[in-house]
């Protein structure tokens, strides 16, 4: 499929003229293209939804930086796999999980964690660049790991992505309450019998899995657009523990699938479309929040009067 699609996109771009617009958006042969990238669309949908969900905990646990750090090591793993000619998803998983475990074990305190990530991240990126420089294959593969790729999702890869996403989904569902408790206040959670160390380490592993699959679609540099932005947007407009995850999954879905569908016609990588959509959603949510805080109160209106009196 990969090889079949590449020339198609190239001709579409060439045939559409050289102007910027048609390079960004071109919907000639759209139906045909859509069939060819069916896998990518499914992958995007799954990633958007599960990424949006895990993002809620990423935000609550203040781990956006950790996501970035894990994704750079995931990139290094994928680049190594590319160089060695083994499964790239597997390489990316290994890199991710190593990073997740290191950060989870050494960085239980936020401050430690940030410094560990700050040290790990450039190391991972550097390793990745080294492996890519040594790699003699197609340059599209190289670039795809950093900035995402649309045409590379074949059937076995899709199955990987779906299985991993289901594992993450189940893991989060089962740990939901202890994980929320631990995210809010680890000391009290531990006093209440939550095995906080096991819970946070498991969360790091799930996060590692999720980052590794996201890297395949959106690229190591832009993983945050799927794992952080949707949740950050949702948290702007709601504080309900039910509505926030639902909105976040919806935003992730719209960003990922919308981005892929828009990118399809043009000859550009898919990531800018995804990141732009998720950023736009975030902006809209901020606007809604700003308008609302002027008018909304969560208490009976009498109360402020009573206190002031």
């Amino acid at each position, binding site marked *: 499929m990969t090889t079949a699609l590449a020339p198609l996109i190239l001709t579409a771009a060439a045939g559409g003229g050289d102007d910027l617009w048609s390079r960004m958006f071109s919907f000639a042969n759209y139906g045909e293209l859509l069939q060819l990238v069916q896998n990518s669309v499914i992958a995007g949908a799954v990633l958007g939804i599960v990424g949006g969900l895990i993002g*809620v905990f990423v*935000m*609550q646990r203040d781990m956006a930086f950790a996501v970035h750090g894990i994704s750079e090591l995931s990139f290094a793993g994928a680049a190594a796999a590319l160089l060695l000619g083994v499964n790239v998803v597997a390489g990316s998983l290994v890199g991710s999980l190593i990073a997740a475990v290191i950060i989870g074990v050494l960085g239980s305190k936020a401050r430690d964690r940030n410094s560990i990530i700050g040290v790990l991240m450039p190391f991972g990126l550097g390793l990745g660049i080294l492996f890519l420089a040594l790699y003699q294959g197609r340059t599209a593969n190289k670039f795809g790991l950093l900035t995402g790729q649309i045409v590379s999702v074949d059937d076995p890869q899709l199955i990987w992505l779906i299985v991993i996403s289901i594992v993450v989904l189940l893991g989060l*569902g*089962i*740990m*939901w*309450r*202890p994980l*929320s*408790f631990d995210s*809010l*206040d680890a*000391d*009290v*959670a*531990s*006093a*209440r*019998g*939550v*095995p906080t160390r096991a819970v946070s380490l498991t969360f790091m592993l799930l996060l590692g899995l999720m980052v590794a699959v996201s890297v395949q679609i959106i690229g190591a540099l832009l993983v945050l657009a799927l794992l952080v932005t949707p949740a950050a947007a*949702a*948290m*702007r407009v*709601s*504080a*309900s*523990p039910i509505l*926030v*995850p639902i909105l976040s999954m919806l935003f992730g879905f719209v960003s990922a699938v919308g981005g892929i569908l828009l990118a399809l016609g043009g000859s550009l990588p898919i990531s800018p479309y995804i990141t732009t959509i998720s950023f736009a959603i975030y902006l809209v949510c901020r606007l809604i929040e700003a308008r609302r805080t002027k008018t909304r109160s*969560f*208490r*009976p209106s009498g*109360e402020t009067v009573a206190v002031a009196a």
Partner: protein
Amino acid sequence: MTAAPGAPAAEHEHGHPGAPVLSLRGARLGFGGRTLWDDLSLDVCRGEFLAVLGPNGSGKSSLLRTILGQQELTAGEINFGGEPVRRGDRRIGYIPQQKMIPAGTPMRARDLVALGVNGHRFGLPLPRRGERERVDELLESVGATHFANAPVGTLSGGEQQRLRVGQALAGDPDLLLCDEPLLSLDLNHQREVSELIDRRRRSHGTPVVFVTHDVNPVLGMVDRILYLAGGRFREGTPDEVLRSDVLSDLYQTPVEVFRSHGRIVVMGLPDTHDHHPHNETPEAS
């Protein structure tokens, strides 16, 4: 692991019959070469209010962590309900130091209290019968009904702290541990929160161990005081401990205790930093 000889703690009568809920025998806690407290024997009985006082770094929070089973004693033993303490014992309610919950946290007041009811439970977060009513009841009992649906991040420090009391009461605890729960609250909120805790003690007989660096907000409730300082401690009623001679002896430097209008003021406390050198940084001592 033998109890220190000659240290029977419950020598004096507190008017609280029954076996102690919490008891320490010859307990010592140290880190590296430094001892926070040693030979500490103490009984806390039903309905008792024990205030734990002391300068920064004297080991107050560490004492609570040992009771919570999160920190091993260096020597001695510590029993809760007649058995050695264990980690994650849900019969102990814990109210941590007041720290603000960040705005934007996807949780409403009622969700914070609900974590006390079901936050330890694994499995899909499906509601169970009776849980909602229980949460409403708890919100009511800490006077939080009118902001039950407000996002926790938008609440004031005092309101958040009331919710933490509700959360701690959710498990119907046999012992309440409070670590500086009044910190950074204004006087009104200090009174409100400490009265909530005291109300539980009087209605259910739940003993309270209350760490604070200002005893005044709880002076009317305190039965006994444990004063930690410089690796040593004094224990007794407020009148026995909060005296110039006792504290001077404890701090080993002249300290004056004044009482005025029912408040207690301690003057001349040494700079605590000089008294608590860290072993890791010898130059600091």
